[in-house]
């Protein structure tokens, strides 16, 4: 395997079911249901997916959900704001762990 990431993986994703059809079917049925219109619109779900894709740094998901958001009429400014939400949570998550650091430091320090 020359590269860990190949764009063709995304198009071939369905083949993951080949070796375990039942689990594959359950997953993809669930996946489809998650993204259907519900209490949240499909558009809102796509924007959440785009933000999460950046948080988990998944190139396949970034590819897929950029196009999906565009198809749902989301423009670049709106997508960029969604990415900043992921960035803020990631950054905030690190920073708020600083509170643990402070507790440890206070306990061990003089």
């Amino acid at each position, binding site marked *: 395997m020359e590269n860990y990431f190949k764009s063709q993986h995304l198009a071939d994703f369905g083949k993951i079911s080949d070796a375990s059809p039942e689990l594959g079917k359950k997953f993809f049925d669930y996946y489809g249901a998650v993204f259907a219109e519900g209490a949240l619109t*499909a*558009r809102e779900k796509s924007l959440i997916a785009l933000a999460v894709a950046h948080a988990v740094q998944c190139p396949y998901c970034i590819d897929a959900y950029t*196009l999906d958001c*565009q*198809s*749902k*009429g989301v*423009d670049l*400014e709106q997508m960029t704001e969604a990415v900043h939400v992921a960035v803020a949570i990631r950054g905030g998550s690190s920073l708020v762990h600083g509170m643990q650091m402070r507790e440890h430091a206070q306990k061990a320090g003089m």
Partner: protein
Amino acid sequence: MREATIRLEDVAADLAQDRATPRATKSLNRRGAPLAAPAAQLALLDSLPLRAEFAALAQGLAPAKLEIFQVNLGKLCNMTCKHCHVDAGPDRTDAMMDDATVDLVLAKIRASSAHTVDITGGAPELHPRFRDVVQAAFDAGKQVMDRCNLTVLLLPRNAGLVEWLAERNVEIVASLPHYRRPNTDAQRGDGVFERSVRALRNLNAAGYGKGDPKKRLTLVSNPAGAFLGASQAVVEREWREGLQKNFSISFDRLLVLNNMPISRFLEWLQDSGNLEAYLERLVNAFNPAAVDDLMCRNTLSVGWDGRLYDCDFNQMLDLELSLPAGPHVRDLDEEAWQNRRIVTARHCFGCTAGAGSSCGGQTA
């Protein structure tokens, strides 16, 4: 009563002087681009490796009752959008309907069983006989649709036009790629969104877009890139909120169209490296349910030179109707038209992808 005669040269001279309308590009024709030729467009589409042909997938496609008489008055436009399927622009005085053909078309409209006359271009409002065509269709009891780019309504020569159209119950079918600035300006030129908003406010002020069926304002959205349009119902809700909240604009309905892979959009697809992936996307999204309501079934499309087609897209590709008497409006016979074979090619995948796409919006 005939208005004072307007000369095409004067309209073109005005457009050449017009600095207010933003322009995104130049016409293929003006640039002498290879894809200006319809045959080159068809050859490019045919060269792509697709896994299916349109005719094989859409075998049930057959003519329906004539409902819409669509007239393309010509390619002159105040704008030059990147995705234009007509290759319209301020330079296109070479492709405008002449007086004799206008008179012929008006006679056929009066005799036609179609309930709607759909006037398109270019910017049809720039044709010197535009008001004659609207008036004749209105007098013949037809519902009239004006396919309008919005910014054309702000040109000084069109002062008062909105009110004039309102008096004749003309439906304004206005193209607006997106309800926010970025995607609209990316496709149509910087500043187009702001001018479109001004035109929409004028339309609202004239009573358009407020639920009056005699003053219907329809917006037409198309994707700003190599992807398909979103669900019409969902997009309409979002646009309604967005336009009302940000600009106090209301409209009656929204249509979502796919971009056809022809003319300037085809060139953009090729230049941006999206061509093959876009065609694949269209083929993969082929939706048999979208075939039933395709506009080619119930629409007669008349070109600026009087030739007849199944749709405005076929018109741009020179794929004219094969009728016994010949493909010209002077020989139009609705019975023969009814028995025609609809002409298709690979670009037709644009109309059957996803929820479908037609001059009347999504079809499935």
